[in-house]
């Protein structure tokens, strides 16, 4: 028999409060979501059961090729497109901002100051940062005023706000930091002598960038990409506000079903979303060990 009272108090016990939060507010809720996705429901209650209707309903008409694409596939496709475009722009912008900070700013103090300058908006309200595009992109906004003034158009452009364009713009605005931080972290670990060696051997700037820096930044790029892609996959707030509540997303389906108290249906959608997200992460993390990167 193991005598528990004889076990020496270990420093590992300090993790108990932390673990408690993750068991109670992370693990159990996700397990419950999976279970309840098989339950039945009516207008006012959820009923323990084991049915597949919630899942079947999601893919209703999806494999009927004579009709147009079903709502579910359309929504997923549109979300994937947002993911891809956002990923592309945050990667390009994030990479070059990190590149500038890591290789062109020489003093540590300036590096910290400029890095903080990029980070500070992350600690302010996302909703406010979204709203702040309205005076710029709206029908009578600054951009339209400018376009009219220089005579590029004679009518205000409607696609600037409450459109796919403004959604991507807001995503890039909000989440480029998720790329900058891990890529910058990877770049700071690159031994400067490697770059010097490449330079001494006659590589030009572009060759160094492509053959030395980018391969060594791969872990940072992967981590940043995971963050950006998962945050866009599950989004319902940015797409809601910047899309004028007109553009669908997977997150929004779950949100709307919850507001109608169709909880098992929402749970089924959540399970599919989660599975897809995990699949993407699994593919991406096969390449690196995150723990080594901290």
């Amino acid at each position: 028999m193991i005598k528990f009272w004889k076990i020496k108090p270990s420093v590992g016990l300090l993790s108990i409060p932390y673990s408690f939060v993750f068991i109670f507010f992370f693990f159990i809720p996700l397990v419950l979501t999976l279970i309840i996705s098989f339950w039945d429901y009516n207008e006012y209650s959820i009923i323990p059961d084991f049915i597949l209707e919630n899942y079947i309903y999601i893919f209703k008409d999806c494999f009927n090729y004579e009709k147009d694409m079903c709502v579910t596939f359309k929504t997923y496709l549109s979300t994937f497109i947002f993911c891809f475009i956002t990923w592309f722009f945050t990667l390009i912008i994030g990479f070059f901002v990190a590149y500038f900070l890591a290789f062109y700013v020489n003093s540590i103090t300036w590096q910290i100051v400029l890095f903080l300058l990029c980070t500070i908006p992350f600690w302010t309200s996302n909703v406010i940062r979204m709203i702040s595009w309205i005076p710029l992109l709206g029908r009578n906004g600054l951009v339209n005023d400018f376009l009219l003034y220089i005579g590029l158009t004679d009518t205000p452009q409607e696609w600037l706000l409450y459109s796919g364009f403004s959604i991507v713009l807001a995503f890039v605005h909000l989440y480029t930091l998720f790329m900058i931080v891990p890529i910058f972290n990877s770049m700071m670990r690159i031994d400067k002598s490697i770059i010097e060696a490449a330079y001494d051997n006659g590589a030009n700037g572009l060759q160094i960038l492509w053959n030395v820096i980018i391969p060594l930044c791969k872990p940072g790029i992967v981590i940043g990409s995971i963050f950006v892609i998962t945050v866009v996959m599950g989004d319902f707030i940015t797409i809601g506000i910047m899309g004028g509540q007109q553009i669908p997303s997977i997150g929004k389906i779950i949100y709307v079903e919850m507001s109608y108290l169709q909880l098992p249906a929402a749970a089924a959608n959540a399970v599919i979303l989660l599975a897809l997200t995990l699949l993407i992460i699994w593919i991406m993390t096969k390449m690196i060990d995150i723990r080594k990167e901290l």
Partner: protein
Amino acid sequence: MLNKKNKTYYICVFFFCLFVLFLYGPTFTIVLLSFQGPDGGLTFPLNGVSIYWFEELWRGGSVVDIGSAFKRSIILGLIVMVLTVLLSVSAGLAFRKKFWGSDMLFFATVASLIVPSIVLSLGVALQFRLLDDFTKWLGSTFNINYINEFFQTSLGMFTSGLGAQLTWTLPFGLLIMFAVFNRFDKSYEEAARDLGASPWKTFKEIVFPLIAPSIIGIALFGFTLSYDELARSSQVMGAGNTLPLELKGLTTTVTTPVIYALGTVTTFVSFSVIGISIVCYIWLKRNKG
């Protein structure tokens, strides 16, 4: 070498400046627009200069009870901040050695950062709904008067709301602790231990002063992320809404600069907290030696 001030250097500087403008420009415009006169609208040009919209916000005007939402958000933010610091520092200390379940806990930490917020919010809402059903069942089965008469829901800001926000703030806290301890010089600690200091004393006298500046960082993450958190708390706050939730509702209903005034105020609060944290951080770093 790369750091030569050639053409690429200036292109990079220009690009970086553009990026900073992109980050801060829009926020600056709404600060500007919130100081309009009473006839001001949602877009430029500015119609006079006044603090009319701040007074309007203060009076409550067309807006729901912003004052109490503001108060709730601050209180919740402070609680999340304290818990984030306590839990992630203690877990960070635990993680310095391998312990039973440490890999699982690390996995949960990273997973929590990348699980879609709406999924987590739904999960916590479901959990508390089942908890409610169970409590009510207990009440009716065992005839517990208190439950039958007063119990409505366990869902609330300081139960489900707090927990959901912690799943977002704690991972940042723990990852900061990892970064700290990866670069931590163990020799001071060992010296203290060799001189006969107890583990608690070693922590208090040696480890804590060394990690104190980073703790300020964790506190900053704890407060600001909670104060602005929206997606995870959206389904689990119960009756009382926090400021970001009210704000999200206002985006579709309010058509006056009062919403910009509110934005200016919350941004000001965030910036003050960030400023105070940075000053504390620098002060602690200086006093270390």
